């Protein structure tokens, strides 16, 4: 039986790597069953499962939260997303990144500098206390 190479990877780990008889995934326009010598195809994947049928008929199932499917005649590549992605969620993240930059520009004394100053103050206080104690000891 002919097989097709299948790679399923996410940005943070390699999920599956091996030969398969068929790969079933949920594309944006519906379910896709990829068998060896499929025509080149590229599509987005919907959150859902990817089934890999191995040579003995064994099925392995992986859940992915979206991604990209690329098909070449002898290799299927699934680039899985690590999180559920949606346009509005991405937009919110972008807004946050912009806001963070604006905040950084607006308050020139940000949290980092304040905490730095606080540690310095604490150190100075500790030194003063140590000096006091030394003076007392010297008097005795």
């Amino acid at each position, binding site marked *: 039986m002919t097989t097709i190479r299948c790679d399923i*990877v996410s*940005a943070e780990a390699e999920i599956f790597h091996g030969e398969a008889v068929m790969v079933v995934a949920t594309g944006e326009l519906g379910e896709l069953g990829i068998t060896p010598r499929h025509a080149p195809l590229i599509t*987005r994947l919907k959150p859902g499962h990817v089934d890999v049928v191995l040579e003995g008929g064994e099925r392995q199932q992986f859940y992915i939260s979206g991604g*990209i499917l690329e098909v070449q005649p002898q290799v299927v590549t699934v680039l899985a*997303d690590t*999180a559920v992605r949606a346009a509005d969620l991405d937009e919110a993240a972008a807004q946050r990144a912009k806001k963070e930059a604006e905040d950084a*520009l607006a308050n020139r004394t940000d949290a*980092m500098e304040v905490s730095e100053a606080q540690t310095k103050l604490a150190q100075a206080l500790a030194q003063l206390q140590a000096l006091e104690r030394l003076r007392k000891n010297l008097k005795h």
Partner: protein
Amino acid sequence: MASGREIKTKIKSTQNMRKVTRALEMVSASKIRKAQDLMKASRPYARAMRKVIAHVAQASTEFNHPFLVERKEIARVGYVVVTTDRGLCGGLNSNLFRRLLPAIREWQDKGVQVDVVAIGQKAVQFFRRINGVNLIGSTSHLGDRPKVEQLIGVIKVVLDSFSEGKLDRVFLAYNDFVNTMTQKPTVDALLPLPAVAAELEAQHIPGVELEQSHDWDYIYEPDPASVLEHVLARYIESVVYQSVLENLASEHAARMVAMKSASDNATKVISELTLSYNKARQAAITQEISEIVGGAAAV
């Protein structure tokens, strides 16, 4: 000469400092391994992504995505700058800035505006002080296990600016992890992609023989524009993510080395101080004896 007591307190405080630098050194030594594992874990994705991008570049598509088109007029460039959140890591961040600043000034001399997206607290602090640079997005405190989700926001800011034509070229600056002793400040071109794609096309990727020798194209579902948009955005994300991981490993390596030399210096200072403490003590004893002898002689 300083009195015995003064020297003793100095020795004490140096010893305490050495304890801190030792601890930091050991923490970094253990974290560096984790960071390297992360780098390794993300490599298969980057490789698969590059492969797909190379295929996309080879496919004879009619459609030309804006990310793939080199622009002739450059009015504004963007830099994505990856730095650490914390200091005490030797010259890691300042080396990167030193590399970056002349490039930025050169653009400005040509009348090109410079926008910056900062990843990491140190970049935020640095570019706030620099005149004429526009901070358009920032994120920090990614922790020891950075996630792609934490970067989506800043990357989208860059991609949107590029698609809208606000940025004509984008660069990525980070510290490349060569090994524990060496971290290389690196500035790479990120957008547009033709240079990147051409380079990938030239590379032979082993084990992947393309069946067709004639012109071929993908079946795009649903359509080339949206699929390419998606693929290219993911590619940029993976490149930036990879650079964040490289920078993380670099940070721990640099901190480990810096803290090791700090501990060594502290040891040296302590031994010098101990010597002068002993000298001072001996001098005091000698003086006392001579005083007693002198006193006895007088009687």
